[in-house]
């Protein structure tokens, strides 16, 4: 929440490249936090305080990396009419995979196999970070080409919409 509050004043004034760097660096911090948690658990060095620190960094960087691009993309790409359609489509995929993830995580917890739980979190975070970085790079390219109107680039995107008709 603190990280999001920091973005309120600066996000819309940042350059295209600065937004790209902010998004990707937060994603990288997020995946590193997950793997630090896995390593600490694997070596038996995880304590409650270290766990809280890892979860805090994971949550802060993950929230910043995911919520801003996703929210802005949904609103700007869907437009006034089709934003809820796009939000629903994206959520269907997210919930479908989450249901499977929650089931397997529950199974791991029942068995007491927390190593696998950490590995699952690291795996999904890593895949998410790769996809997010690719998205941010794609969006940066869209900002320069301006073919469809960039998404993370908000002020410059005005006047660059195209018609599908």
């Amino acid at each position: 929440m603190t990280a999001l509050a920091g973005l309120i004043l600066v996000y819309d004034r940042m350059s295209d490249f600065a937004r790209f760097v902010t998004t990707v660096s937060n994603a990288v911090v997020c995946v590193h936090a997950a793997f630090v948690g896995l390593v600490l658990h694997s070596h038996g060095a995880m304590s409650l305080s270290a766990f809280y620190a890892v979860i805090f960094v994971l949550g802060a960087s993950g929230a910043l990396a995911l919520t801003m691009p996703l929210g802005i993309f949904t609103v700007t790409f869907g437009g006034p009419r089709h934003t809820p359609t796009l939000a629903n489509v994206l959520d269907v995929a997210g919930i479908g995979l989450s249901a499977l993830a929650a089931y397997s995580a529950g199974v791991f917890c029942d068995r007491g196999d927390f190593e696998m739980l950490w590995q699952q979190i690291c795996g999904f975070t890593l895949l998410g970070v790769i996809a997010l970085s690719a998205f941010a790079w794609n969006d940066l390219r869209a900002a320069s080409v301006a073919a469809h109107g960039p998404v993370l680039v908000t002020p410059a995107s005005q006047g660059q919409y195209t018609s599908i008709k």
Partner: protein
Amino acid sequence: MATSKTEASPLVAERLPRIPIRYGWLPQRSHAVTATVTLCLLTLVGKCVGDAAFLSTMPAVRDATGRSEVVTVLPSLGTAVYALGKVLGVLFSSSVRGRSLLVIFGTTSAVCLLAFTHGSYAAMLPAWLVFRLFSSQGWPCFSMLVANWVDVSLIGQVSALLNIAWEVGTGGAEFLFGLMLDDSGEERWRWPFYVASAYCATMVLVDVFVLHESAAEAGYRPPLLDTLALGSGPAHPLQDASLREALRYFCASTRFWLILATNACFSAAIYSAYFMNVYAVDALDATDREVRAARRPPPTEAAAH
């Protein structure tokens, strides 16, 4: 599918003299601030009330069913119904009438649930499933309001503010739930119901006065946008597109697939991380207790006596 750049929609200028008087009550100068603050308040209260209602059902459902197998199946069942709500949302949320339904369903579900739960706990499960179905439209509903109210140049700041309101609402829900549990008496339990009622009344007003468009207005640009001169840029490419055209447009975009994968993977990681509380209690808390016990000096003979 042409990709030529479009000019600003002439419909905007044409419609300006015909602005209905019913939108005149909104402040003209501080429109951006008004819209943002209103959105944040709606988000905060909606998330708070909705989550508190959701949390309040879980112990009651467990009590009503009383079988561990059902409790194990419930999260999956709830998720399946939630996904069904999303699919229904895809189908009907792109039309004007569908958007009205979206707002009403997405925001009155908390009240419906709280009203249900006031009755017999034996009826909790269907009420809970209905709530999961309707509450799936919460975030699409807020996204739609942002898309209709907020100027493109402010979208980053408003998104950050909304996300903060969302998180504060989540924390507030825990607080509300705690208040419900503290006292099982009727008097204290019922007041979240009144908060939810006021919230839903506000959202219905938003739906009626802001999002609703008459049949004469062919476009999907809400009158409020034109009235407040927000987003006076060119029309969005999907403004007049049908559902099929919009889905085709989404699928043709690389960024759509990438953000879909991002959302799916991060959501799966977050859902997995929910089980970290089990890890903290079973693995870490027990270990910490053992470590503290080992570090503690053995009791002396006198202390033992």
